[in-house]
Every structure is written in C-alpha cells, then in structure tokens.
C-alpha cells in the first residue's frame, strides 16, 4: 500500500482552489476516455483555475510577498512512463481571487495507455517572513488535482498507416489509398497481415480520416474508403479456394477469421460457397449488397 505524502509544512484547504473542467481547443470537455486517439496526434487541453490567494496566505501563514504559480503536467504511468508539463503560470504576489488558464500538451508519440493530467498550485517564493511551518521551497506543492484519462479507448481498429506513396514502388504515386496485404496468406494475423495505406500527400484524405476532421465530406470519404476496403477483401476472399472450402478453419485474429466474420456480418446465413457463386454470376449485386450493409 502506498504511503500518503505527508508534507512537513502547512497546506491550505481544498477549497482555496476551484478548477474548471479540462477542455480541448474547441472548448469541448474531455471525459475519462479519449476514443480514437492515435500516437500521431498531440492532445492539447486547458482549464481555468481560480485561486483564493488570501486564503492560501492565511492558511499557510505566508506574507504578502509570497509568490505562487499554477501549472499542469501529464504522465503516462502505464505505457511510456514519460511525463512533462505545460507552461508554468506565475501568479506573482497578487492577492485576492485570481483566475488563470493552464494548458498542457501531451505529445502523441510520447504517450499511450493512460494519461494522468495533474494540476498544481505551487509556491514560487516564501517571501521574507514565512512562519517556521510554512512551505518554503520553490515548487512546494500546495494543492493538487489529478484526472485520469484513458487513451486509445477499446474500439478495435483496422491497421492503417499514412505514407507518401511516392516512396512505395508498388503503389501509384497519386493513389489515395491502397490495401496492402497478401490475399494468399489468410492465416497471417490481422495486425501484420493487412494494412490500409493512406497517401500522406493527399491532405484531404488524411484530414478526413481524423476523428476531429471539420471537413463536411469527411464522413462520406470515410464511408467510401470503408466500403472499398471491404469490397476488396470480400472479392479476394471469395477468389481464394482454401477460404471458400474451409472458411471457419482460420485461427483467431487471423485475416481469414476476420474475412469469415465480415461475410457472416454482411450476409448472415448465406454459405460462403453461395456467395462465391454470386460473385461470379452477379458481381454488381454483391457489391451493392455490401454497400447497403455498410452505408445503410
């Protein structure tokens, strides 16, 4: 069991600080989970902190020349174990009730798993005549609040990478997306066996797949990509003799199992052999049924 910290100096009561909710740059409050987070997106959040400096001074027995600051920091204790802080906001020797904005940016590549957002009121200077039991050290923590936020969420994701297609010989430079997989090796794991490549030079496509995209066409673009990827996967699966004969024989988390589940979701109750016949005789109908299921 962790031993609670026992500062050897006076602490103010909790009520001396009133902190607003953490918000993203659009002013939207963040909850305890950020879904669709990815390690290429920095998380920038801010909150307003109101401090009753008169009460802090009184309860800590500090004089009017004592100076304070507030700051926010982050730490990812479960994955990267890294942390850092946003800019320190100096409150100086102000008295009365003051409000200060604190902001922190959590770099995507440095984070993951869970991020603890900690807001603190700290002492910068104890002034000329602190009492013997007043806080004295620069950086002494007077008030703290930590909010845990789960990154990544729990939603399953299709493997995806943004890359300049000019650097990949097998893909046309100007294509917008490309499903990179070996459709003969369906026992390969999904994470490793199949990957959607997005052309990083196509800014509209890249922007559209971001969760926070403000492009009004983003949802449509995402649906089109999803539909096209599913169509390619379905067509290739139904072309694969081994898959058609034994669609249930692939291990969990394999490409073959994913395809088997995809077919069962779109065409529940229809045998794979029947779907193959439809793909040969009525390919347009098969595509339309897929659209209906995914876009409907």
């Amino acid at each position, binding site marked *: 069991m962790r031993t609670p*910290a026992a*500062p050897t100096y006076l*602490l*103010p*009561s*909790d*009520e001396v600080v009133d902190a607003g909710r953490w918000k993203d740059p659009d002013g939207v409050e963040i909850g305890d989970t950020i879904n669709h987070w*990815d*390690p*290429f997106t920095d998380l920038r959040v801010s909150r307003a902190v*109101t401090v*009753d400096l008169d009460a802090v001074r009184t309860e800590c027995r500090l004089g009017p*020349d004592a*100076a304070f*600051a507030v*700051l926010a*920091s982050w*730490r990812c204790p479960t*994955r*990267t*174990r*890294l*942390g*850092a802080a946003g800019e*320190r*906001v*100096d*409150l*100086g*020797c*102000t008295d009365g*009730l*003051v*409000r*200060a904005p604190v902001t922190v940016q959590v770099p995507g*590549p*440095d984070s*993951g*798993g869970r991020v603890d957002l900690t807001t*603190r009121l*700290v002492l*910068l*200077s*104890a002034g000329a005549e*602190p009492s013997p039991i007043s806080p*004295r*050290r*620069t*950086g*002494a*923590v007077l008030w703290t609040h930590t909010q845990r936020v789960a990154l990544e969420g729990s939603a399953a*994701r299709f*493997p995806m*990478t*943004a*890359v300049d297609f000019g650097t990949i010989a097998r893909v046309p430079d100007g294509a917008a997306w490309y499903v990179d997989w070996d459709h003969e090796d369906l026992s*390969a794991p999904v*994470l*490793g066996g199949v990957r959607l490549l997005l052309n*990083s030079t196509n800014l509209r496509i890249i922007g559209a797949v971001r969760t926070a995209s403000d492009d009004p066409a983003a949802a449509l673009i995402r649906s089109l990509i999803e539909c096209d990827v599913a169509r390619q996967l379905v067509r290739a699966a139904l072309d694969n003799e081994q898959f058609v004969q034994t669609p249930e024989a692939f291990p969990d988390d394999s490409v073959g199992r994913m395809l088997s589940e995809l077919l069962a979701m779109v065409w529940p109750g229809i045998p794979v052999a029947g779907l193959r016949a439809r793909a040969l005789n009525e390919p347009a109908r098969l595509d339309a049924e897929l659209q209906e299921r995914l876009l409907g």
Partner: protein
Amino acid sequence: MTALLPRLDREQTLLQIEHARSLTLEEIAALMPVTEVKTTSSPLGGMELPEEVFSTLRATIVALAREHGYPGERARLPLFDAACARLVHDQFQISPNEASEEDAWSHITCCWLLDVAAWRWGGMGKGDERRFRGDVNRNTFRRLWWRAEILGPDIDLMLLGEDELVSIMERPIVASNRALTRSLVNQFLARVQDGDDGGRMVLMREAGKRLVRLTPIIDFHALDQTELDSMLRDILDAAANGDPLPAAASVVKSAQISEGVERVARAPVLDTPPEAPREALESAAAELEDLFEVAIGIARRTGRVTNSALREVAPIDPVAARRVLQGLVDRGSLARRGQAKGTYYVLPNAPAVAGEDRASQSIAPPGAPAWVPAAEKTLRRFLSRYRKD
C-alpha cells in the same frame, strides 16, 4: 512518420526461449535470424521496418560484442552496454510509444539477437527469462534504448556505471521527467569528475532515495533549469554527507505575473456601496439561515458535512461554503474536524466519522429542491460582514 517494429507474442517468445536454453551459444547464433514466426504490428503508425534494418543492426551489434569478448569471456560490459544503447536507439527511429511494446522487444531479442543477449548474461541456462522477452526493466536491449532516450544525446553513457543507471531508470517517477533525470546525471557527473568519486555508487543510490522522497511535495516541473540544478546539487550534497536536505532559506523573488492571469471580483465589502438596501440584507440574512439549515441537515443525515457536500446542494462557490461552515462553527452549531483536505464538520459532541462511505450518501433529503440564492452578491456581502462581526 515513425517506424513500426514487428511484434512477437508471449507464447511464441517463450517457445523460442525454452528451445534456446538447451543450446550452446554457437547453436543459438546459427539460428539467427528466426523468420519462421508469425509477427504482428501496431494497427496505427508508420511502416514496419524492413528486414535489412534488423540485419544491419545484428551485424553491428555482433561486431561490437566481439570487441568485448563475444562469444568468449565477457569484458568491459558497461562500455558494451553504453555503446549498444546508442546503436539500438539510433538504428530504430521509433517513438517512445512504439518502444513501450513488450512484444516488439521480444521479437528483436529472440529473432535477431538472442545469442548476443545470452552472451551478455553469461548464457541462457536457467537465467532470467525477462532478459530475453521484452520485459520493461530487464530486457537486454529495451532497457538500453530507454537509457539513451531518457538521458538524451548529450550525456556520455560510458561515464555511468550500471548501478548508477539502474538507480535512475528503475525509479519511474524520476525517469519520467527527462529534464530532472538529465540534470541529476549532469550534477552527479560534475561532482564525481571534480574528484569526489569515492563511493559514487552509494552517492547515486542515496541521492535517488532523497529525490524520490521529495517528488510528492515538490513539483520539479515548476522549477526552471537554474532552480532544478541548484536543488539537485543540494540533494547530492545531503546524500554525500548523510544529512537530510537543508531547510530552504526564505527567499523573495521578483514576482512576475504571467499573461492571462486575471483578478476576479468577489464582492468584498470595500468594493461595494457602503450600505446595501435593508430589504436585500434581510433577504440575504434569510438565505444565510437557509444555508445554515441545509448544512446542519446534511450533518444530521450523514454524520458530517464538507465544503463540497454543501456545494452539491447549494450553488455557492467554495469560499462562500467555507464561510457558511465557519459561521456555524463560530455559532457552536458545528465542530470542525480534520484539517486541510480532510476537513469536515460534525454536530458538536459527535464522534469522529470513520470511513469514507458516508461521503457518497445522498446529502439532499428526498424530493428536496436545490437551494437557489435570490441575491447571491448580497449574500456574499452579508457573509463577509457576518465573519467580520
């Protein structure tokens, strides 16, 4: 774009390790690289590194190991580790997020460098399997990558001993802060390079302990570089002398105020007209009595009342709530218990409240409407006056 590393799951990793335990170093080396495995990679990120990168890394690290005795007697292992850390870190342009994946380090170790890892630890035999799978603190190469990452390119890893590095890296609360860690190492090296190198291993251990003890009460992120260096010098001095950290001197600093900080009016008595209308004061007095009743009601129902509990029922700010509760203490209607963050109020002569379960009980009586002040500013003035009186 960052690179992705192939990942080898725990089951396949352990199979590789168990298989290698009965082999000689030469036989393990002959198995490298192991490509007949199923690997995965992150669903999001850059492109998986091609095999050539791993081939090059293997060739470079084997050559480095040979300089230190591989496959025979091991020599100057700290220097091998230091050079290997830079090689692994520079070869893989991966993010800390990617470098936090156990299965990625299992793949590197078991499929490309298992012979070097076995040599580094004196053979596999019944040795610690965590050296070979991607354990966060023990994996042969993962721990080296992180040393290079945390300490940065400007610190010469060859100047630090294994025990000193472990003292830093296996204290996550210290190693999580790159600036703190680098400052600690720089101050430590400056000290030992000045000739004070007696018992340097003990010095770092003791400094690490003192530093960890300070982390809950000092926010090191709040210190600028000069302040950080100064505090770490003090910590090293205390560690060297076996003393506690000296008391901080009273300091008066220039008190700048950051942009964006604003004073918030709270209707102090001096800022308001000398007299509020009599009706408003009477109304505020009535509302104050209502608040007193609400607070006492909470204490009666749940055994205690806290500032936040009162604010759940009455839309007042923490300062006003504190004054209401203090007002009841002054009247003798409530008694204050606990202190600072643990402050709560109970009815006089009530026993101390044990446990926190009461805090989660509903504090409002069933069906009770939320208390809404009709003239909040007037009420606050009244509260100020009440306290003054």
